[in-house]
């Protein structure tokens, strides 16, 4: 199946990455922002796996990196959600534009 060049997979992952970034920039709901970040991380995973598979198959660095990224993403998401919940308690909202007390 090598007739699908690496290039294309990278394009896909890049696209996904920037889709996620778009979400992060535009979404006002914190949870959706979190989702966008997950998307970005996933695109990175795709990169790693692709590179590992296509270019450097003799070692499994990419694979392992992916695994750890996923784990960390989980931890991050957990903490983020905890914080969001706490913030919801105090602000009664998870709209990111409502949490702008501190500025300038």
């Amino acid at each position, binding site marked *: 199946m090598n007739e699908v060049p690496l290039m294309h997979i990278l394009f896909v992952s890049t696209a996904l990455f920037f889709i996620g970034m778009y979400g*992060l920039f*535009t979404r*006002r709901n914190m949870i959706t922002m979190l989702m966008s970040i997950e998307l970005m991380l996933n695109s990175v995973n795709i990169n790693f796996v692709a590179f590992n598979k296509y270019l450097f198959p003799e070692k499994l660095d990419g694979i392992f990196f992916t695994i750890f990224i996923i784990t960390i993403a989980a931890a991050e998401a957990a903490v983020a959600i905890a914080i969001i919940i706490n913030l919801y308690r105090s602000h009664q909202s998870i709209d*990111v534009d409502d949490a702008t007390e501190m500025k300038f």
Partner: protein
Amino acid sequence: MPNYSYILWIPLLPLATFLLLGLFGRKYVKTFSGILGSLSLLVSTVLSFVAAHQYFYVDGKVNGVYQKIIALKYTWLTFSPNVSIDMGIIIDPISVLMLVVVSFVSLMVHVFSLGYMKGEERFATYYAFLSLFTFSMLGLILSSNIFQVYMFWELVGVSSFLLIGYYFDKPSAVAASKKAFIVTRFADLGFLIGILILGFYGGTLDIGLLIERLTAAQSSEFIAMSTAGFLGVSALTWALTLVFIGGAGKSAMFPLHIWLPDAMEGPTPVSALIHAATMVVAGVYLVARLFPVFSMDGTALQIVMYTGAFSALLAAIIACTQTDIKRVLAYSTMSQIGYMMFALGVAKYGGEDGLGYMASMFHLFTHAFFKSLLFLGAGAVIHMVHSNEMKDMGGLRKSMPITHLAFLIACLAIAGIPPFAGFFSKEEILTAAFHTNKMIYGVALFTAALTAFYMFRLYYSIFWRKESHHHANAHGEGTLTMKIPLVVLAVCAIGVGFVPFSSLVTSDGVALETHMDLVFSIPPVVLALIAIGIATYMYKSENGKSAQLTAALGGFFVAAKKKFYMDEFYLFITGKIIFPLIGKPIAWIDKNIVDGFMNLLANITGKISELIKGFQSGRVQNYAIYFFGGIIGLAVIFIYLWK
């Protein structure tokens, strides 16, 4: 090498007195301070007479020429290997002459002040200042180094400032002292620059060396100096002119004379000392000091001559119109100094041509006595009348006979009536002038007449006119200590004319044969007598004649009375030009532009920080956008632009 080192004591004694009185006078010495000062000065005077005798009659003359003797000298401040300020004592005819004059007159004034200043609160301070002045003046005349001259020159200025401002709670006195100091200071600037030029080209500040180098027409220094020029005038002329400006300032030559009349705010004895006999002739002395150099440069001498002559005339005219007796005397002083100046101006170096020089010194000598006498007399009068104005006086001849007599003698002397001192000196001057410049001669004659006129106007309006003795109640004629100096000086005013001056003080130290020829001595005497006659006719008794005269003169008289508006002119320069047009703008610029710029920088920084605060919007999404923007920016820069 004859030993003159004891001369050092002549200035040092007054200095010691000054320190003593200045530090402890107010508390401890008090009333004795006067006696103390007078005694110490007495010693100096005796010493100077001894010195004079030794120099003129014992060992001053070597094969017919009076030598320049450097009594002692040590380096005080070295600028560069050959240019240094040396403190030294120079002994030559004029310095010895001045030594005598200064110490003697100063002594007289000290004694006079014992009575005149009695009961003053700051008696000790007064004597301290007097001693300070005497010290500086003696130092000035003994200086062997031109920079040393400048130093004492300044000291003289400041001590005159202190003495004029002695009545410091009288605003007019303060103003006068400030005026005197600043005007002379302005002149000193010229002196200083002159010194800088001389010192640079002459390669030394030592007067003897300077003269030696700059009078030798083929010496490298002289050539350099006469060729080097600025604005088309040779460095030599510049230097001498500037030095002369310094002298003109001290000697109240036009146009720097304005401080002298105001200086009369000081105690009268002070005027007698400083503004009659000693300090005001410093300028003349300075020119005489450097005369050999001056004589090398025609232009400078011309300037000296014309300035002197003009000042003499101007002052005489103004003197005729003043009503404050001290101001009259002040202007007459100015006019007499003008005499001395142009006498120097018309002279040449050495031999017969040096007559003017001799005459000038001679006049300086005689003038010192009768002018100080006049001032002291005026002092005595004022002491009695408590006023300077002629209108408050008159008919005092009965109530104060001695003063009257002395004053009369002095008037005759200054008017140049034989056999009084003034006659001889004036006659020499006129002779010298006649030989060089007829116009000057004419001016001189006219001035002589005027002199006689205003002096007797003064004399009559003090001692004659109204017969009323409304001052009889006042305390007699003053104490003995006030009478003695008058008498002594009167005697001098008669006698000093017979001093064989021409054989002692000449431009080149060689005795000069002067012969009295009537052609030169008759006209001035006649003119003087006529002038006295007119004065008698107009002022001896109360009558409207003087009023008619003033009416006849009209505007000219007013102008003269207003001193030809010189003061107003200077006032305009300072008050309307320097302060508002230079001082104020600079102060404004400093506050608003220079300083404002510094503040502006600060404000701009603050503004910018206010301007960019929007980036810290508190919205985390914008933060992310900026973050990404930063990355893209860097990437674009470093991938595409910054290769």
